[in-house]
């Protein structure tokens, strides 16, 4: 992306340790910048701190040192400018699927009627139109995750933070959802930080893929390819191997 | 680090608050703002405790006598209930027919407030020890029974299936799978039952005796000794806590593999 515009998200020398200050840090001096409307994928082994970093960007967890800026302003807390899809199910179990999505839409400032319409649209988008009346407990794990995505989209945030959102989905639905996400992203233009542990998923989605390791960003890979991308594209395969080697 | 700090802060705040309350209580009493009969100040209560321990109330019946009488009654009623409820609960829980046959009766018997039986047991068995023991046993029994039944009935079927795949004979499935799996729930029942015992005993001791903490607190009030009443209440509370802790320790001892006590109580 172009270098001269101000980045949408800036992660500046962010470190994080849990518990005593002497304990080994989960993150140490992470730097990352995401341009407006950029799609950045965070890749890394389990436990390397992806969720932690995302939580810090969201403002849910304060960094031990360093800071995160959005539009040049320091992040001090969460807010609806930054929507988030959580790794665990975070739907409100006391609301039906539709009401969950509506909740997000209402938070974005819409009137009841409009919120309802948006909720319908988004449920349709994630393929759950008939399931609007169901409660989260009555949906499968993958369906719940799709509702959660719809809820985050209903918020219509400028920044969308997604923590392994497709982790619970089967391969087929996962591919469908990837395509849908790209469609939404290209039509609504959002800055997306997308955590995944699938190299291929990262390569199908991201403008850039940031590989995490050793408490920081180990390497960043540009995926200069138009979408939709093909898994058998030689350039994609080359990047895949490159990242794979780097992770070992 | 920060967690430790906030825990210390919590304890300090809590202890400080209680201390402040006690001091305020004492001072307002000294100033005559609180009537000493309605709210005997801490110093008066301490005096009452001392008197209760040394001279007794009524004169000669000392605090240990009261506490022991109460404990003995709770204990005998509780044990009686256990002895009856555990085998019958296992039997009912293991048989679907028995379970369905007894379900409404047990539900109703549980709904009968134990203390409402007080006048009946007095008519039948007088105001002596037997009546009190039976009342406590009644309260404990139904709580215990329904927990034992549920424990046996709701054993995770996967466990049983797993045992089947290992060719475990039926009798062994019962003794080695069903019973151990039901134990946490049985323990939970025992703890609830003990709570019921403490609740019932006070009511039971309000009639026909001068021994026991329930009798003590009522007697003390009629003699305008609310300080002694409060000492008795505190003792009941302490005994309840000690028993609850004891049961928990016992459970940890006997069921080392079972950590989540709270998971089974629903």
């Amino acid at each position: 992306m172009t270098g001269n515009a101000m980045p949408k998200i800036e992660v500046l020398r962010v470190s994080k340790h849990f518990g005593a200050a002497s304990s080994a840090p989960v993150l140490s001096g992470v730097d990352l910048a995401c341009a407006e409307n950029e799609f950045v994928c965070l890749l890394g082994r389990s436990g390397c701190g992806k969720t932690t970093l995302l939580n810090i960007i969201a403002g849910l967890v304060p960094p031990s040192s360093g800071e995160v800026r959005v539009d040049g302003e320091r992040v001090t807390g969460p807010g609806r400018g930054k929507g988030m899809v959580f790794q665990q199910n975070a739907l409100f179990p006391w609301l039906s699927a539709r009401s969950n999505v509506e909740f997000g839409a209402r938070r974005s400032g819409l009137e009841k009627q409009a919120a309802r319409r948006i909720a319908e649209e988004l449920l349709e988008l994630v393929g759950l139109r008939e399931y609007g009346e169901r409660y989260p407990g009555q949906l499968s794990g993958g369906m719940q995750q799709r509702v959660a995505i719809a809820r985050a989209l209903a918020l219509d945030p400028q920044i969308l933070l997604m923590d392994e959102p497709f982790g619970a989905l089967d391969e087929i639905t996962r591919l469908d959802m990837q395509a849908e996400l790209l469609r939404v992203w290209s039509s609504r233009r959002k800055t997306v930080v997308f955590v995944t542990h699938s190299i291929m998923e990262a390569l199908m989605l991201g403008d850039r893929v940031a590989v995490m390791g050793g408490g920081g960003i180990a390497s960043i890979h540009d995926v200069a390819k138009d979408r939709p991308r093909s898994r058998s594209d030689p350039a994609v395969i080359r990047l895949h191997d490159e990242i794979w080697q780097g992770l070992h | 680090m920060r967690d430790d700090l906030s825990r210390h802060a919590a304890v300090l705040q809590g202890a400080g608050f209680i201390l402040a309350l006690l001091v305020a209580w004492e001072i307002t009493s000294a100033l005559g703002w609180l009537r000493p009969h309605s709210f005997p100040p801490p110093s008066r209560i301490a005096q009452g405790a001392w008197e209760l321990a040394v001279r007794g109330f009524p004169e000669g019946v000392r605090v240990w006598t009261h506490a022991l009488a109460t404990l003995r009654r709770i204990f005998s009623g509780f044990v009686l209930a256990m002895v009856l409820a555990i085998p019958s609960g296992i039997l009912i829980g293991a048989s679907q027919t028995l379970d369905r046959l007894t379900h409404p009766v047990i539900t109703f018997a549980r709904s009968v407030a134990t203390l409402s039986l007080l006048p009946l047991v007095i008519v039948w068995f007088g105001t002596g020890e037997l009546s009190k023991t039976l009342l406590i046993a009644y309260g404990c029994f139904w709580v215990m029974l329904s927990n034992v039944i549920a424990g046996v009935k709701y054993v995770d079927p996967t466990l049983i299936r797993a045992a089947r795949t290992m060719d475990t004979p039926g009798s062994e499935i019962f003794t080695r799978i069903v019973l151990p799996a039901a134990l946490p729930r049985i323990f939970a029942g025992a703890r609830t039952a003990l709570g019921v015992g403490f609740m019932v005993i006070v009511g039971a001791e309000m009639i026909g005796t001068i021994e026991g903490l329930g009798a003590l607190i009522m007697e003390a009030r009629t003699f305008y000794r609310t300080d002694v009443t409060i000492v008795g209440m505190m003792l009941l509370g302490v005994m309840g806590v000690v028993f609850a802790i004891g049961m928990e320790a016992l459970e940890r001892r006997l069921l080392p593999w079972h950590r989540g006590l709270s998971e089974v109580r629903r």
Partner: protein
Amino acid sequence: MNPRAADALLGLGGILIVLAGWELVARSGVVSQSVFPPPIHAMVIGLRKVPLPDLGGHVWISLQRIAFGFSAGALLGVVIAVAGGWYRVFGNLVRPVVEMLRPIPPLAWIPMAIVWFGLGEPSKVFVIFLGAFFPVLTNTWKGMSNIDATLLRAGQTMGLSGPELLIKVAIPATLPDIATGLRIGWGLAFGVLVAAELIAAESGLGYMIMHARQLGEVEVIILGILVIGAANLVTDWLLARVLANWLGKWQDTTRAE
């Protein structure tokens, strides 16, 4: 036959067996029928001595006392627990006080209730209040401290904070625990009723049966016991229905897992 009908039939059979056994023992002459009357007989005589309108009056009074005490206890219990769970300092201050008072059985407060409130209605309501207050409080508090942090975070990412987060996320997430507390509290309120009505009452089911003991009317006592049990059963069932309605469907679905 469908399993539900079979359940009902077998259950009815169980009740009949108990009644028949009772009838047989009572008629066998082992004990005098005036002390151990057969069930139907007891009901008939009991109703003759305390006619239906009188009985209804006692039930009504008792239910009123329970309703007052329970509502006050439940309301205060929820408010304190929600505030204590949400506002840390308040929680730190109140929790130890509550933990000190909680183990004292509600009935043990009767003498002090008489000292504070006299022999009238307030002291009875106070004891019932205590019966409901502590279970509601502890269950609500437990629910507040066990809220899934992810739910709160989800709320935060949607721009909720402060009291809004409390009302829109924390309290709804605690509702199942509040409901559990309410049911336990209702049961305990019933449990202490009779003892509460021992406090110089002139009416109510507890008074009715204690008075009957003085008159030696065993039939009235038995009738009273059965009515108390039935009233508890019916109202608990109603409460469960109301709560289920109020929680919506989601609670069953999460419990089933």
